[in-house]
């Protein structure tokens, strides 16, 4: 009799054990990334995929919601002083780093100073406006600024706002990236370069009930076809940056789901207007030629033909649905007759020759070929120079281009999508466009916190820019994900990050 009971107990516990392991396996989420991240240290990191991994591993002071509003994460509230030169924050209580040390105001001060001074830090320019950080209490800090900086909050939603454990950072020094310690919902387990990054749930996370997945594995798989094949074979449950031509396949597959967000990034044609000798063309010297080229574009056709309709047309550095979009300059339909008139007015006789430089990516080259066909109709002959991306950037920065076509992944604050590209000394102003009034408005918009006032300034700058047209925006760079039907609760975000709160696997 006793034997019998024991046997039952044994069977029951075995069954539980099997069920348990089954559950644990089901809760490992395997995500396919397009590239292998670089150093896993928020201060040193440079890659987009690195940010995806950080999103699970490192909490930030501030986060964004799916409408790009700032929402609390490690900071629970914040206020700017009257003169805009002090940003004060209240911090969340009861937060621990993954090594068990507590998160507090001193940790914030440590992190900002680390990002500002660490050898090899990529955050120095993002935090350039911060003069000092003062600890106002155990859970209260103030950032004292050299001059008002309305973009700072947006920096805190990204790597500049990620807090690492001061203890681990001090102890590990240069090796921190090999064993990062943050305060996010998932802690670092292991990394094999070019193969995988493994994270597991941090049981002392302040909001741990929102996270159901036990283990996350990120696998860099650069080839989009292979990435999708891994998802379809069940080896992965989620992939990022699904290629537009594959959207149809995913929608047709009953075991898969598709999610998209128009994003905050864009693709554009940068026109050399003052960067060396190659700017000395009708195209570089006469804005009417540039306006004609814009009018000859059929952005809808580009979206439909190359992108299956997932990359909406864009004519400004902000998407049509963005609150920063200037509605006085809506997308214009293609107008070949008017484009020809403009060319004539600019004194262009005969066929105009221009060169477009583009990265060696299939889809981007297809876009260029379409543009080539569209512009041929107004008498402009395009030659296409396809070059690998690192080379393209080098050529663009040294002025060896007429038109360079490349994209920008976008920033939550409007400043990040426009300032560096068109201000006279902007770091990414490859066309070397320079207009004192544009500079005045864009620097002004940095110094004001009130969004309504900033909008007026951005509109004033855009009015000039959309007339001078050193940059022709072509389409929004949407984010596309594909995932298994068994994955529930996945939500797309405009910054392209993968947030795992509320995500479950069945």
């Amino acid at each position, binding site marked *: 009799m006793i034997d019998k009971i024991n046997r039952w107990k044994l069977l029951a516990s075995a069954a539980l054990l099997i069920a348990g392991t089954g559950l644990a396996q089901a809760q490992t989420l395997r995500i396919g990334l397009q590239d292998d991240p670089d*150093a896993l240290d928020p201060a040193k990191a440079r890659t987009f995929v690195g940010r995806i991994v950080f999103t699970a591993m490192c909490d930030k002071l501030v986060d964004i919601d799916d409408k790009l509003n700032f929402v609390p994460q490690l900071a629970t509230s914040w206020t700017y002083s009257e003169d805009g030169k002090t940003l004060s924050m209240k911090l969340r209580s009861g937060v621990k780093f993954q090594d068990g040390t507590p998160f507090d105001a001193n940790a914030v001060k440590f992190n900002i100073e680390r990002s500002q001074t660490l050898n090899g830090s990529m955050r120095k320019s993002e935090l350039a406006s911060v003069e000092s950080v003062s600890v106002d209490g155990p859970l209260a800090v103030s950032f004292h600024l050299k001059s008002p900086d309305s973009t700072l909050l947006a920096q805190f939603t990204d790597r500049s706002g990620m807090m690492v454990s001061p203890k681990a950072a001090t102890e590990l020094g240069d090796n921190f990236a090999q064993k990062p310690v943050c305060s996010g919902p998932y802690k670092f387990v292991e990394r094999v370069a070019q193969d995988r990054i493994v994270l597991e749930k941090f049981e002392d996370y302040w909001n741990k009930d929102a996270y159901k997945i036990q283990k996350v594995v990120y696998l860099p798989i650069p080839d989009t076809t292979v990435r999708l094949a891994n998802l379809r074979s*069940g080896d992965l449950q989620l992939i990022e940056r699904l290629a537009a031509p594959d959207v149809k396949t995913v929608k047709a597959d009953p075991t898969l789901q598709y999610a998209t967000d128009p994003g905050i990034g864009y693709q554009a044609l940068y026109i050399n207007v003052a960067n060396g000798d190659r700017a000395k063309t009708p195209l570089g010297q006469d804005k009417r030629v540039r306006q004609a080229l814009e009018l000859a574009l059929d952005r809808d056709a580009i979206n439909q033909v190359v992108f299956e309709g997932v990359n909406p047309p864009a004519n400004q550095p902000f998407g049509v649905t963005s609150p920063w979009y200037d509605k006085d300059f809506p997308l214009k339909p293609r107008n070949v007759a008017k484009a020809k008139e403009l060319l004539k007015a600019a004194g262009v006789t005969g066929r105009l020759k221009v060169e477009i430089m583009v990265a060696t990516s299939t889809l981007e080259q297809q876009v260029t070929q379409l543009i080539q066909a569209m512009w041929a109709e107004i008498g402009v002959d395009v030659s296409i120079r396809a070059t690998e991306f690192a080379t393209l950037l080098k050529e663009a920065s040294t002025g060896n281009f007429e038109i360079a076509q490349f994209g920008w992944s976008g920033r939550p604050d409007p400043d990040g999508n426009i300032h560096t590209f068109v201000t006279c000394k902007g770091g990414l102003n490859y066309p070397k466009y320079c207009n004192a009034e544009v500079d005045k408005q864009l620097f002004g918009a940095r110094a004001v916190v009130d969004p309504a006032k900033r909008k007026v300034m951005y509109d004033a700058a855009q009015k000039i820019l959309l007339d001078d047209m050193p940059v022709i925006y072509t389409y929004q760079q949407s984010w596309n994900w594909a995932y298994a039907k068994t994955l529930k609760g996945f939500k797309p975000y405009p910054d392209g990050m993968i947030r795992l709160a509320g995500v479950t696997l069945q």
Partner: protein
Amino acid sequence: MLNLITKRLAVMVPTLLLVAVFVFTLQHLLPGDPVLALAGEDRDPATLDALRVQLGLDKPVPVQFVYWFGNILHGDFGTSYKTGEPVLALILQKLPVTLELATLALIIALLIGLPAGIISAYRKGTAVDYAANVVALSGLSIPNFWLGIILILIFAVKLKWLPASGYVSPFEDLSRNLQTMILPAFVLGNALAASIMRHTRSAMLSVLSQDYVRTARAKGLYEPAVVLRHAFRNALIPVVTVVSLLFGELMAGAVLTEQIFTIPGFGKLIVDAVFNRDYAVVQGVVLCTAIGFMIMNLFADIAYGALNPRIRA
């Protein structure tokens, strides 16, 4: 024999130095700026300058070379620009993966190529010969990346028999390791099998018409013994040369195959490093590959000696 080996080793030293200089110069002739590639979207000029100083790229190229080569003589291959990991550790981590892939591919290639070559030579002019030739030709002509993707679609997506890509260490899980390796090894081996088959066939054909083969047959030897022991062994010499040269093709093929099947090996290491302009890694990898080639050639020379006493002098 020992004499031969020392001679070969002595020649390796100047060759290596030449390779080192060549790799370094070639690298700096590549268009594109490593700092631009590294900085990604954070590429404002101030950041780029800081990165340049941090990586020592602000110094003149000859000075950089002296630093780099001096460190290598001390066993220090530098650290990856991208991830900050030591290059030597990366190489040691990736090399076994590619060696496993290359070995499996070679085994598959030999298993297909040798028998096919022998049979088609023995049955010259028959349907079997033509069929083997057609298969060999298609093996040579089908590009690796296409075959790889098609096999993934068939065996991983449709049939779900094998994982689509990735890698598991054999020490972690041997059966899973073989599952992930079989497709890439086949893709890589298939192309080699074709050239092994062609070389075996022509070598066998010339040997089979030799007098001593006829003599062996006249002695009334069992036919398989004639073909395998007498003919095949002598036909092997050119085949060994080809196989040792194929090592180069294996490494080159591994570059593409590893990229498709996302196997974290040597080939993928170098492709990614080139795209990221990770000079330290590219230089380390190319140098190691050069050493690998030299060692393979040395082995080939030794193998000739073992197979043919006349070369042993």
